[in-house]
């Protein structure tokens, strides 16, 4: 079963929930946690496991072979992303704009733009006690998160069978990286905070999940700050509220140090337990 943990607004507790829930579940189940926030991956700061595998990740980009090129101009005409342009008698490729669609390369009549791999980031797999953890990080200067997220999910599918509960720590927002990180999930947990910003971005996230036709539920983090509008909204929209996580400075302090919270605060552990039960029930009732 695949569970994605997402949110519209950043900083609402995706990583906190991901690492605590994954570590807790791993005490009794086969679990793999995967950090798909490849631009700013943070889960690894909380799960300091043993590195068992690392690999570079590549995206394919065209490379101009001057000697073959007849300067017919076909390549830059077919490129919709302005990643291939002609300047005088030179063809220039801008890798950061390239979407690896292969059109320029394969439609070139003289094979003057072969596709070559370019490093875009790295993937690492860790093991901490019974918990497996996979994270990918995008190289600074690479602009597109989607290809790395897609390759990370492929790695996960290949290396972890369906017996595993797979938890994805998704990127913030509602645009393409979030779609990529949630589109093959069986269930999505949207975590928010009970503030006007939290509610506004939650509505966007809910619209996104409905567009994707996903089953989802909501967790309200830092319950007690702000107001009741998030809960009223969930009730009106008939969205299940899985938990209301407590607002406590101790939680923020433990988080600030990179510590797991459920191991230190019993009330928080009880809440994580309830969320875990919800997920196990979903699994049993047959969302795959």
């Amino acid at each position: 079963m695949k569970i994605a943990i997402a949110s519209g607004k950043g900083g609402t507790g995706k990583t906190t929930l991901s690492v605590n829930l994954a570590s807790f579940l791993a005490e009794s189940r086969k679990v793999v946690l995967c950090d798909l926030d490849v631009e700013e991956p943070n889960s690894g700061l909380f799960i300091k496991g043993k590195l068992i595998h690392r690999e570079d990740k590549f995206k394919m980009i065209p490379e101009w072979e001057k000697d073959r090129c007849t300067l017919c101009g076909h390549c830059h005409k077919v490129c919709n992303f302005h990643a291939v342009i002609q300047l005088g008698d030179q063809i220039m490729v801008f890798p950061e704009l390239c979407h690896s669609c292969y059109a320029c390369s394969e439609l070139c009549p003289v094979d003057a733009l072969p596709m070559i791999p370019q490093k875009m980031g790295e993937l690492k797999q860790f093991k901490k006690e019974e918990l497996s953890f996979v994270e990918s990080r995008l190289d600074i200067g690479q602009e597109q998160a989607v290809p790395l997220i897609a390759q990370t999910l492929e790695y996960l599918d290949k290396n972890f069978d369906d017996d595993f509960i797979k938890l994805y720590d998704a990127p913030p927002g509602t645009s393409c990286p979030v779609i990529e990180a949630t589109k093959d999930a069986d269930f999505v947990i949207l975590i928010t905070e009970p503030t006007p910003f939290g509610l506004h971005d939650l509505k966007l996230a809910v619209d996104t999940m409905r567009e994707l036709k996903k089953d989802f539920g909501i967790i309200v983090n830092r319950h007690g700050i702000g107001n009741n509008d998030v809960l009223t909204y969930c009730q009106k929209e008939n969205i299940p509220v899985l938990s209301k996580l407590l607002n406590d400075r101790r939680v923020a302090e433990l988080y600030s140090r990179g510590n797991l919270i459920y191991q230190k605060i019993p009330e928080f552990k009880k809440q994580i337990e309830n969320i875990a039960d919800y997920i196990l029930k979903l699994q049993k009732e047959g969302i795959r």
Partner: protein
Amino acid sequence: MKEIVIISGKGGTGKTSITASFAMLGGKDIVVADCDVDAADMHLLMQPDWERSEDFYSGVIAEIDQEKCIKCGKCADVCRFNAIPIIDEKYVVNTLNCEGCSYCFHVCPADAISMNEQNVGEWYISNTKADNVMVHARLGIGAENSGKLVAKVKNEAKRIADETDKQFIVVDGSPGIGCPVVSSLSGADFVVLVTEPTVSGLHDLKRVYELVKKFNIPAGCIINKADLNTKVAQQVEKFLKKEKITYIADLPYDETFTKAMTKGQTIVEYDDTNLKNIVVNSWEKIKEHTNKI
């Protein structure tokens, strides 16, 4: 006219609350741009009047005319994005997967594929309660945040600032290090990094600053919730010194920010004590630094 961009790497560090305060303090001397188009929140504090709104078109998406399709499958073969599955024996486009490269369009022997312009969102020009103009936007659900809408918002803000002879543009950026952030940063005169003393905050600050360095833009930093973890706060300060990033201010961990937000107010309207003073001093410091550039 100078451009000040506020970013954070990590989400939820207080970037928008602080930017909106600067927008209030800047008043009619500035133009405001909310470039966090993916989860734009600043309008919740600025009470914009949505005076002008326009659709934003960017990129194209494939559509297959089933009447013309001869089911040769060439389109699906060349598509690298699995965007043309076979459903009920028909080749159809999965619009969420389609990246708009047009490769399928070029190889279709039956001329059955058309590439249609995509409406990916809306952008707005508003007058705000701070007596200034704000340019903001809303990206469509699941649309590609390629940075083009961000660039549009910024360019409009620039145009308005030029035409009305304003001193500053104040830009609220987006989290992360990808395309929208790159777009927010391009052309900036001064970058304000808003961080928090948590292991994640520091980690993300370092990554996003690597990106800022590539653009060669001078930067300053506000440490929000500074008293949450003094040890990590010291590590942040050490990093600022090492990288010659201007230290601007510490803000305490204080739920007053949330209370102000709940009332639809910035901290400089809601609070008239310590917090307000820190933010006012920060804004003065930022203006001073930016003017020196």
